[in-house]
């Protein structure tokens, strides 16, 4: 029997169907733990109003074809390096638009992480690769939904734009509990149920919600708190989104913006991300798949990299012009880098040994490169940084003191980032 089954009469009303699709995924989560931040530490968090744009290139963009070019070297590939807006810093010729914004960026060129596998790498990196304590740590978006003060706008704090289907990704929340999961917008589109049928007027809608709340009460008494909290949160999100349908109305988009960002998925999704950030969504993740060029690496990078270069430069421009770059932290990263060694299919494989991450905005220095790789680009030359260092740095940039803050999970204190790592001081403003 499923652990949530209680044989109550409530189920005769087909509860799942009534509660709707927004909460559907949350119901399956393992929610028997709660999580609290130590109150004293919570007081110290000064992150009110801070936001994050987290761009995830699933797989790995080649550091050699983007942020750490090594032209005419052993593994350099056919592309040349071009100057950026910061003298002495060069990027690959494939990112000419972003190169113009190097003065806004902090580029870490000495990431050295542990996992070369997709199956474990995505979660491991996005959870900050903490020490194994037998619990699933939250993804970064869920962690910040917990750690940062809730935004006043009541919009879902963690929204995820990705190709394909949307839904509610409760799994991202790990031990924090389902309500810290991600509201996922497939193709950047809103959940279809935020559009109330024309036949349902305000009065009828109120009556429906009232019924739902009444039915929730006996259900709540027989369930763990976090289950119901997740359901309730899903409905709260839906109610808020129903008031903000304008965020998804493509008719309001400026055609020049559409052209600047591009009409490919990353262009459309980053433009949607800009709208969500402008509306005050706390953490917006944008995922792009298919960055895994084991074959035909150079033709594929020539086709794909412009799809991130242009919209990334556009959103940096827009955030800066709107004054948002002071409060929005931008993170652009992958699971790992790509092998310097070029394989039989003119591809590059997975390479966690030495790769690059790009940051911009809130709390980080502008126009700096941190760390370096060897002349052939294969290894870090000097200090290396792991996911734990990156998480410490991101938390610090947002005003969360990662070396002091802890989650409390069923009485167990858990560091919010790997305790053997520390923030990268050179990155922080």
């Amino acid at each position, binding site marked *: 029997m499923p652990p949530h089954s209680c044989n109550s009469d409530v189920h005769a009303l087909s509860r799942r169907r009534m509660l709707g699709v927004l909460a559907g995924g949350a119901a399956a989560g393992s929610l028997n733990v709660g999580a609290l931040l130590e109150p004293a530490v919570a007081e110290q968090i000064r992150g009110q109003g801070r936001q994050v744009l987290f761009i995830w290139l699933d797989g790995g963009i080649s550091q050699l074809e983007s942020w750490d070019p090594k032209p005419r070297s052993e593994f350099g590939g056919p592309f040349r390096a071009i100057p950026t807006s910061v003298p002495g810093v060069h990027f690959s010729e494939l990112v000419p638009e972003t190169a113009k914004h190097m003065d806004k960026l902090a580029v870490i060129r000495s990431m050295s992480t542990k996992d*070369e596998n997709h199956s474990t790498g995505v979660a491991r990196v996005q959870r900050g690769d903490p020490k194994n304590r037998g619990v699933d740590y939250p993804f970064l978006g869920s962690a910040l939904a917990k750690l940062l003060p809730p935004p006043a706008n009541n919009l879902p704090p963690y929204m995820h734009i990705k190709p394909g289907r949307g839904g509610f990704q409760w799994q991202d929340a790990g031990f924090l509990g389902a309500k810290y999961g991600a509201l996922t917008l497939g193709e950047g589109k809103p959940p279809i149920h935020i559009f109330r049928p024309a036949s349902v007027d305000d009065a009828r809608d109120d009556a429906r919600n009232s019924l739902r709340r009444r039915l929730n009460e006996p259900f709540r008494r027989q369930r763990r708190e976090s289950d119901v909290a997740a359901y309730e949160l899903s409905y709260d999100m839906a109610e808020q989104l129903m008031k903000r349908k304008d965020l998804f109305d493509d008719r309001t988009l400026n055609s020049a913006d559409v052209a600047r960002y591009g009409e*490919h998925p990353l262009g459309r999704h980053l433009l949607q991300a800009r709208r969500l950030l402008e509306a005050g969504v706390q953490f917006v993740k944008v995922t792009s798949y298919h960055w895994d060029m084991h074959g035909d690496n150079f033709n594929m990078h020539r086709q794909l990299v412009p799809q991130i270069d242009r919209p990334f430069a556009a959103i940096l421009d827009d955030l800066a012009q709107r004054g948002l770059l002071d409060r929005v932290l931008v993170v652009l990263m992958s699971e790992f880098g790509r092998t310097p060694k070029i394989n*039989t299919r003119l591809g590059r494989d997975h390479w966690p040994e030495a790769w690059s991450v790009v940051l911009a905005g809130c709390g980080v220095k502008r126009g700096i490169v941190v760390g370096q790789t060897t002349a052939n680009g294969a290894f870090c030359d000097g200090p290396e940084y792991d996911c734990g260092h990156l998480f410490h740095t991101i938390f610090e940039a947002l005003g969360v003191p990662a070396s002091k803050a802890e989650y409390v999970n069923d009485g167990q204190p858990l560091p919010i980032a790997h305790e053997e790592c520390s923030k990268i001081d050179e990155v922080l403003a």
Partner: protein
Amino acid sequence: MVADPTLDVKKAWQSHSLPHDRPLLCCAFSPCGEYVVAGAQDENLIRWNLESGEKRLLAGHESWVHALAFHPDRKRLLSGDLQGALRCWDYAAAAPAPRWTTPAAHPWVQAAAVTHDGKRWITAGTDGAIRFWNVDDGQPAGELLGHGTEVYSLAAHPAGKHLLSGDLLGRIHIWNLETAKLERTLDAKLLHTRKEDFLADVGGVRSLALNRDGTQVAAGGMSDAESNTFCPGKPAVLVFDFASGVLQRTLRTKTKSDGPVKGLVYLSNGMLAAQGEHLNATSSLEFFPGEGTEVHHAIPRESGYGLSLHPDGLRLAVAGFVNNGRGGNGRHAKPAEYVAHKGALVIYRLDEKKTT
């Protein structure tokens, strides 16, 4: 060229393996028959003297050389690289130096050829253009536009009137060089894949070859790409009747490979030789008869990216890859052991090995 009666691909044997520090991407025998040249995953153009084995690096390119064409005057060679530069060489000189250089013919020069009358070099690139250049001074001499996407391959028809060009989307344009007009297009779309969730087009007509009398057109590439990441597909060669444009045969390799056929040549007896690529595994050089679709003979070997037939019709060169230690996904590699893969220009003789 009349087929040599001793040509028998089933008796093919490796006569030379000419090493280089990086994998080789393209190759061509000189029309005089004394040299073979190759482009590599570095900035060198490499020339080997076939008799002495002397290797000479022709320096000057600033990116990988991906396109080669010899002039029928037996003096000049054109090379094009992936920064768009063209260089024209006196290839047989003791220390060849460029006669002229054009720095930006295309973003990437993907293919090169020469007109039948020897007056113009022809190049094709990632900008979708086909361009003509005076052989003597490299001055622009016209262009053909119409692909609208990357052009990967060129072949000049032996009768001199037509030029064939193959593109990323699987189209083979047949241009009339007398009118400078597009005459017709062969449908090789099997060699292109773009699924709904792909971020890029995959495949294309990566190689083109015409048989001796120009009655058949062969196009190499791969079909059924599964993704735009690994880009794994099914190697394929499409054979068209030139006059009618009808697809006559679809040839599949016998040995497992997952990359496009980039090396493709007609032998003097009408057979086709095709070289494949395989991700981190052995590929093959395969021979197809003039009719039918069954593979006549296959030689397992490393991945290769270019083929050339010697003027004598009995030697076939493969520009390719030589494994040099662990690659693939990884971590904990030792810096001293983590070095680039190598390359070799392997020459196969297509007749029986004589015992002494």
